[in-house]
């Protein structure tokens, strides 16, 4: 009898424990979910500004992190100098043109690498090899041949984006489920149909990933690209401001690069949702 009672008690304890364990994360996630995601963005922003302000007060860091008001003010300063918009425009042109050329080249190269093994064996190791070299390292070589100005900037960004995008797309094409190709073949698809109606749509998610990576790489190699004696541009301006120790506009420009990156990512995501919403896994 005693034993039975004990067991019963034990079990009730166990179930109690279990329900307790279950409840805690539930209540936790509840208050997290109660706050709308837009508000979370705002909260995150406020936290960042608070930390920024603290950094601007601490003597050791204040020179690198000028007060938010100084930084905001420097928008006006840079506009008065007549460089703010032209810098943004110049950088955008370099990144977008470089990215587009890189994309246009990487697409056929990736498909050829996936399709023909000799091409893959010859090209892939070099793409992997060069991909690990920071663009800043080969900028001088580009300048020697291409001179200064817009051309070397675009060349540097094209190289950097091409390397990443071609590998990403190629790996995607290689990973296409072979049964999809078989299924198309038994339904009467010829090589051309398989390429246009199976390989192309099945690669789309990887192409979108490549675009996302490509725009990000394009932006991160901007500083390197604009160290080619550019006359305008966000990266070039940051280096120039460095020479005059103007921290406020420098920080402003760094933030502007970040914001442009954010906008790129949003645009790509929008495109992704429209084009590849059929995908099994999303985010």
């Amino acid at each position, binding site marked *: 009898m005693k034993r039975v009672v004990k067991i019963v008690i034990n079990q009730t304890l166990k179930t109690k424990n279990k329900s307790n364990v279950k409840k805690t994360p539930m209540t936790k996630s509840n208050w997290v979910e109660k706050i709308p995601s837009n508000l979370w963005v705002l909260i995150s922003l406020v936290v960042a500004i608070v930390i920024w302000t603290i950094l601007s007060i601490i003597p050791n860091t204040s020179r690198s992190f000028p007060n938010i008001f100084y930084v905001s003010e420097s928008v006006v300063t840079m506009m008065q100098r007549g460089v703010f918009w032209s810098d943004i425009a110049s950088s955008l042109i370099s990144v977008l043109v470089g990215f587009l050329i890189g994309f246009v080249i990487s697409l056929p190269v990736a498909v050829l690498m996936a399709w023909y093994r000799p091409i893959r064996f010859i090209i892939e190791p070099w793409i992997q090899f060069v991909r690990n070299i920071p663009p800043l390292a080969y900028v001088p070589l580009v300048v020697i041949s291409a001179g200064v100005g817009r051309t070397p900037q675009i060349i540097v960004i094209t190289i950097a984006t091409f390397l990443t995008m071609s590998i990403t797309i190629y790996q995607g094409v290689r990973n296409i489920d072979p049964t999809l190709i078989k*299924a*198309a073949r*038994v339904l*009467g698809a010829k090589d051309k149909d398989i390429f246009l109606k199976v390989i192309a*749509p*099945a690669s789309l998610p990887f192409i979108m990933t490549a675009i996302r990576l490509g725009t990000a790489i394009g932006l991160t190699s901007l500083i390197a690209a604009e160290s080619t004696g550019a006359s305008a541009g966000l990266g070039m301006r940051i280096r120039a401001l460095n020479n005059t120790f103007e921290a406020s506009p420098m920080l402003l420009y760094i933030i502007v690069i970040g914001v442009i990156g954010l906008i790129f990512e949003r645009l790509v995501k929008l495109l992704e949702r429209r084009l590849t919403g059929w995908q099994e896994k999303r985010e």
Partner: protein
Amino acid sequence: MAGEERVVKLKIDNVRKVYNSQNGEVIALNGVSLDIYENEFITVVGPSGCGKSTLLNIIAGLEKTTSGKVFCDDQEIMDTGTERGVVFQQYALFPWLTVLGNVKFGLSLQGMKKEKADEIAMKYIRMVDLEDFVNSYPKELSGGMKQRVAIARAYAANPSVLLMDEPFGALDAQTRTQLQEELLHTWEKEQKTCFFITHDVDEAIILGQRVIIMSARPGRIKEVVDINIPYPRSQETKITPEFLEAKNYIWSQVYKEYLEVRK
């Protein structure tokens, strides 16, 4: 059924298939010969590695024989052809196409006009009871529904031979029995020559007119068992003495092969 009247649809003539792997040659099929008659429902059982999928791929034209030939309507099979439809275990639906898009994929390839293709596709979508999901994408469907779409897609291309490679293998028992019954219904309505691979002995007997038992290493036909249970068959058929007798016999034969493989 008098043997003389029956037309041979598929003729498998002394097929041998050897793969070259790093550990040397692997004989997947050896000396496989079989005549499959028009509108016959053939099921194939055997341990994994007995080459049953290889045989199906060869009939489909997706793989070539090392030696030996396969004929469909007295024509040697050299490549895939729309008269031979395939249903794969992994569904193999195109995830970027809707149910309708998937079912009419083959029809569009044949250059059929959109209205006509839609009409035929809809007929088969209705056949598999998915008219409410015409515009859904595969990711929105359950496994059983996906396989229904795959079956509709194979039917819509109007093949005279239907090759099925463990089509219900990935489904839960309930869905599987349901799809078996549906498949039988369809086959009774629109007769086609069916070549159905399974590792489920019950499934092989309930569907097939003849069950082919294959043995492994190298894959060859061990025995052909006639199932003389009249159609229409249903789940109740599974408790009839004829069914149980066939099941006991086939199971013991297959089990011997499993033991053989494990050695």
